């Protein structure tokens, strides 16, 4: 391949140490702008600019990451550099919300304003984080991008924003729906292209369920920090009920510090519903039990023979070794299949369905959410009980309609996998039934599920039932996830039935 004429320029781009040898085109006016995730400075000598800017030969300009636009704006004022490009949207309407903010909501917003309009607010589910965000938007009256983890939440935010500021000011950007308005709601999945193209229109970034931005995020969520890096928004607000303490260095750097925190235990029963948690144990049928034993035998025998547990330092490592071996080893593959089949058997155990019906009959007046361990289980519950199923692939409009119907009492229960674990808002739903978890005993998932039921509505008491197949691995998963809730229920409010 012939020498690359850009090679020198690329070295410069990647090496800030050499930045002093370059300067942008002197013909360009002195300007600052945002382009495709970059803060772009033109017409300024490198020596006269902040030292963290680097030369980008593609643009013949000094560039920095988009999230440092606010620093550059301050620098530009004293450096005679004018800002070009799209300005943040203005929101010339007041907040129209009939709710009176509670004292702690006002206090949370005040602390956030005092902290430079950056930082995270931690409030229990049901404590009104959305209203806090609406109040923050109202304080700034500027374009805001609201990022939420699921489409269901996008639909919910859309409704709340439309009610509060007028539907003509609210847009949604995800999947096939891409409309940018002064207040635009998007998913974490879609936020990057939105902020890349339209970032300068939003001076405020609201990050719902901000615990998804923990340092330990895996898979696709790891890339979500990059949304914060390219966003030029000066002001940022993180909202969560389960803040990732100790795993928040990126959150602190890119969003700001924790500015306000209250836990379920600190809230009074004036602010959150009282709740009870109950475990119900069922037995597998004789056929299920025999199948469970056979599958366990297939799986355990292979794991023992392969010796993964002895050779690995941790249980997680042993699992990784086992899963990797299943790629090329037919016996390991059979064992892995047996493992998954066993989980499926427990998820779909006939006794769980019967027990669910019993619980629904015990609470005939309640609206219920049935949390399932997988789509197959949710489908089985939906078909057997003739109730709706909400999964990740349920269209946003249908989810929205179902949750509204649930709120109005036209339907009385929904089955869900993970998508209803967090963020949705049906105050009337006060009965939760956990048939399984998709995270093998995650406390966070369990607390989030409980939180769905805690929104205060009169004196209604929330009930969260767990149906556990006795004598299976699920017993231990239930113990593990229950630990988080015991801490809650033993504090001030919970009581056993």
């Amino acid at each position, binding site marked *: *391949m*012939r020498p*690359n*004429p*850009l090679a020198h320029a*690329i070295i410069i781009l*990647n090496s800030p140490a050499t930045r002093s040898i370059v300067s942008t085109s002197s013909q*360009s*006016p002195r*300007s600052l*702008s*945002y*382009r*495709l*995730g*970059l803060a*772009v400075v*033109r017409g300024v000598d490198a020596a006269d600019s902040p030292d963290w800017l*680097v030369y*980008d030969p*593609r*643009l013949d*300009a000094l560039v*920095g*990451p*988009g999230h440092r636009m606010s620093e550059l704006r301050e620098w530009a004022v004293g450096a005679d550099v004018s800002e*070009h*490009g*799209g300005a943040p949207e203005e929101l010339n309407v007041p907040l129209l919300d009939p709710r009176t903010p509670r004292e702690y909501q006002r206090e949370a917003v005040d602390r956030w304003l005092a902290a430079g309009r950056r930082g995270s607010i931690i409030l229990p589910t049901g404590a009104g984080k959305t209203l806090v965000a609406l109040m923050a938007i109202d304080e700034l009256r500027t374009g805001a991008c609201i990022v939420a983890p699921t489409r269901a939440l996008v639909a919910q935010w859309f409704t709340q924003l439309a009610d509060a500021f007028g539907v003509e000011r609210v847009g949604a950007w995800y999947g096939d729906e891409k409309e940018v308005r002064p207040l635009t709601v998007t998913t974490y999945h879609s936020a*990057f292209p939105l902020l*890349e193209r339209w970032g300068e229109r939003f001076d405020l970034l609201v990050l719902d369920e901000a615990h998804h931005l923990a340092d330990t995020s895996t898979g696709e969520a*790891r*890339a979500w*920090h*990059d949304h914060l*890096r*390219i966003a030029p928004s000066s002001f940022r607000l993180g909202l969560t009920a389960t803040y990732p303490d100790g795993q928040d260095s990126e959150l602190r750097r890119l969003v700001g510090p924790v500015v306000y925190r209250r836990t379920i235990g600190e809230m009074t029963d004036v602010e959150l519903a009282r709740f009870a948690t109950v475990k119900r144990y069922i037995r597998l049928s004789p056929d299920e039990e025999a199948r469970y034993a056979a599958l366990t035998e297939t799986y355990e025998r292979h794991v023992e023979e392969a010796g993964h547990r002895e050779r690995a330092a941790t249980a997680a490592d042993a699992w990784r070794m086992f899963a990797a071996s*299943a*790629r*090329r080893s*037919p016996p390991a*593959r059979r064992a892995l299949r047996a493992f998954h089949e066993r989980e499926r058997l427990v998820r779909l155990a006939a006794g769980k369905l019967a027990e669910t*019906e019993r619980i*629904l*009959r015990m609470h*005939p007046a309640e609206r219920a959410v049935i949390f399932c361990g997988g789509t197959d289980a949710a*489908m089985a519950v*939906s*078909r057997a*009980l*003739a*109730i*709706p199923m909400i999964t990740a*692939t349920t269209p946003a409009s249908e989810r929205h309609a*179902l949750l509204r*119907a649930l709120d109005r*009492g*036209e*339907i*009385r229960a929904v089955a869900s996998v993970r998508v209803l674990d967090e963020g949705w808002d049906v105050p009337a739903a006060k009965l939760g039934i956990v048939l399984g978890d998709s995270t093998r005993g995650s406390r966070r998932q369990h607390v989030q599920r409980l939180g769905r039921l805690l929104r205060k509505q009169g004196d209604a008491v929330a009930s969260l039932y767990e149906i556990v197949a006795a004598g299976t691995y699920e017993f231990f998963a239930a113990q593990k996830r229950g630990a988080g809730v015991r801490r809650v229920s033993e504090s001030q409010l919970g009581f056993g039935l």
Partner: protein
Amino acid sequence: MLTRAHVAPFLRVERGIVRVSYLSDSEGRVVPFLDRLCRLVTHLEGWPRDAVIEALRRQERRVRDATRLAGIAKALLDACDFAPPDGAEQAPAIRDAVFRARGSRWPPVPGDARVPYEIAAAERGSTTSDIERLLYADRPGARLLVRAARLDGKTLLARYNLELARAVLLDAERVRITARGGWRAIFGAVKLARLMHVIRRVGRSYEIELTGPASAFLVQPGRYGIRFARIIPGLAHARSWRIEAELRRDEGPVTFRVRGRPRPSLGTAPIGSVAHRTTHDSAWERSLATDFRKRIGSDRGGWQLSRETTPVAAGEELFLPDFTLRHADGREALIELVGFWTPEYLEAKARKVAAAHLDHLILVVYRGLAVGGAADALTASVGADRMVWFTKHPRAADVLRVAEQCARR
């Protein structure tokens, strides 16, 4: 498109170079097996997608490497056509009827499990079994295989290997493409990908260097990888092509090289073309093309509007106008639509246009951008008589009026 998980086991790094273990048929057993998979899928026409996937997975017992099979199955299914079953469009209404029927008879009691279905069937003049069958008929997994890919083992092998190479690009930070021929499709694909690109002439061919705009500041490798990978279908039109990509991995930067030659059996678009799905890369371009087709009339005054994928020399570099207007008498005008861009983009555009000395180039510019000196610079470079401003949608009539004045042979 394959995922990183499909390709990861087949990558190894040797002295900074990524090597891919492509699937070969050295023992003569692979192609017959792939032939068999292709035949199997043909027999499964009419089956739901979930069942087809399960049937392919069950072939695991015939192979040593399950990840290979998963990748091959994905490549094969991506080439198949699926469609919703008959009546699937009724599914939302059926669900609504069933669930409301249950809501009005709450809570469920022993023996009434079928009652909501019977109520919904009576309401809709249907049968209970049809109601149960169609309840979730609109799920992706319920879509039916209506046309299996017409592939044989050799073609599937080539397609899978190309898909492996494509999946490697998911981790790319920078990609350089050189190719012989087929540039119209390649440039089209590059434009659609919204990457920063520099195009240079190399002898009688072109070289394109592609980069993600902000990749130097991001932590997650492969942020723009999917956009790089989308370029690959465009390469199918080239006589031969070569890609050199820089990847960021845990062990540091590494290089991946791949080259391709035509395979008559692959046809022109072996792995599905992006370009055929999205002809225009913005709503305004689509709007201009539609307006031209609908409003200008059948004879269109002798003018034809076509999507342009031949680059135009602009100083040291090349750029691609969006459309060409060609008249029956041989005159033509180039059209560049300037939509949602920053003043810097306009300035750069102005410099390019000035350098190109293209007096038959018409710029169609969104009025919302007419801010600051950039718009003035653009007008000065191009000339006010060759600019068409629009506020909502570009109008073909306005463009034609200017074209009549500036088109050249």
